[in-house]
């Protein structure tokens, strides 16, 4: 059930995948010896596709994203973007991190305009573009505020807007909605989907929410717990464009149930593992 490159879904065009992950292994040196965070993972993503990655806590999702984002080296395997193997951060990739990554010394507007400032865009242009993306994530009126004055979920939306303003071809989002309540999550997820379809962006989303993954994705990569492998890749054959209403359809329920049963085993393995470690350490 491990490494397996998924064949393209039947409706796929013949275009080349924009992102290919081939046999990636990433180990960390820890005091208890080497720890395999990502183990022989392979999958590919086509242009404009929305792929979710789901798996129990600690299974290696964020580590996988660090590899894709070119932020860590020392891994085995290969990651290619449009046919080119990556070496370091690739200009086609934009990342939204799991932790709060807003700059506390910059206002919301200056946070979102940051990547544009780096690109050397004029102040007027970058502020105009930043305002557009701030409105997109529903933070109009907060442009002059500083991150310390915002809630965790609002800060996360600032990060999303900042990465969107960068207009990357491929967007990697590590649990961007983790700090949000279910309703806001649904609405913002819907928003992200609209943005993605508008901008024809390729999106990879890490999430803990099965229903969110089903609502948004073309495909879902389910990961195993320790070492993090591909357990299964599921095509979500729900009609597009999807609205929030899709959540109440019967097909939706079937997908959620299927993924839940896959995840349950992995999650309980993770829990047992954590409990065992606690026992041995105390």
């Amino acid at each position, binding site marked *: 059930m491990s490494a397996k490159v998924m064949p393209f879904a039947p409706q796929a065009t013949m275009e080349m995948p924009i992102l290919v992950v081939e046999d990636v292994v990433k180990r960390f040196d820890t005091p208890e010896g080497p720890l395999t965070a990502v183990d022989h993972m392979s999958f590919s993503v086509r242009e404009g596709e929305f792929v979710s990655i789901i798996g129990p806590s600690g299974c290696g999702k964020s580590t996988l994203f*660090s590899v894709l*984002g070119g932020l860590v080296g020392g891994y085995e395997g290969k990651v290619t973007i449009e046919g080119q193997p990556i070496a370091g*951060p690739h200009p086609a990739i934009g*990342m939204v991190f799991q932790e709060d*990554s807003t700059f506390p010394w910059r206002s919301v507007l200056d946070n979102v305009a*940051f990547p544009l400032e*780096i690109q050397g865009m004029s102040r007027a242009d970058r502020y105009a573009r930043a305002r557009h993306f701030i409105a997109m994530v529903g933070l109009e009126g907060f442009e002059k505020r500083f991150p310390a004055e915002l809630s965790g979920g609002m800060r996360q939306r600032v990060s999303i807007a900042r990465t969107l303003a960068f207009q990357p071809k491929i967007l990697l989002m590590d649990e961007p909605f983790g700090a949000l309540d279910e309703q806001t999550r649904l609405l913002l997820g819907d928003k992200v989907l609209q943005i993605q379809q508008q901008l024809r962006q390729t999106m990879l989303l890490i999430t803990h929410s099965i229903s969110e993954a089903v609502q948004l994705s073309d495909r879902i990569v389910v990961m195993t717990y320790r070492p993090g492998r591909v357990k299964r890749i599921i095509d979500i054959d729900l009609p597009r464009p999807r609205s929030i209403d899709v959540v109440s359809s019967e097909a939706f329920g079937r997908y959620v149930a299927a993924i839940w049963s896959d995840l349950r085993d992995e999650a309980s393995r993770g829990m047992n593992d954590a409990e065992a470690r606690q026992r041995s350490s105390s």
Partner: protein
Amino acid sequence: MREARRYRLPPIAFGLGTVILAFAVIEVLIRADVISQYVMPTPWQVLLSFGRVVAEEDIPHRFLATAGECLAAGALMSVFGMLLGVALYRFRLLRAATETWVAAFAAAPLVLAYPLFLVIFGRTAWTIIMIGFLSGLAPVALKTLEGLTGVRPALLNVGRSFRLTPAQQFWKVLFPAAVPTIFVGFRLGFIFALINVVGVEFLINFGGLGQLINELAERYDLPGTYAAITFVILVSVLFFIALEGIERWLRPAS
């Protein structure tokens, strides 16, 4: 913002009130002869001596001399301290080899080496500035290092994923993130620098307020001595206000 201003008044009032109260207590203690009049003048006497000291002892000139030396020492200390801190951050080997030494240097009573500086720089303001500069160097370097090492990895990753150049990564991410800690270093370093500047002025009997304190003390003009010390405090207050302003400009709202 209006709200913030309204809350700025009570701390100032409270601070002033505390100072006045402390002076009143000292005044009473001295008058009741709990503290000897021969050791300490009453705050009232000090206050009365201000006019005399300012008029007769060329205070404006001396004040500027001391403030200028502090400014020079502070500028050197900030620039070189930060450079040293950045070097310690960047070069692991350098850090492993010298961090303890730098920390030990911070505690060294550098002022005792003043004869050496006199030989090198002569009885000029440079002797004073260099001792002030060197005594503030270590805290700035160590706090810069601490600030840079403490920057959250997520912020560094943002910079890296937006493909910042190393210079951009430093000026747009690392430095602003470390500013609060670096400024703690500036404050500490400045305190050390000021103490040493005034101390060396006193010791070598040259320059601004330190020399004046020396002379007034020799003349046993106690109220005048304390009045002169007040001007040293004023230098310190002015520098702290300036530092706070710069920090707020670099890092608004934090």
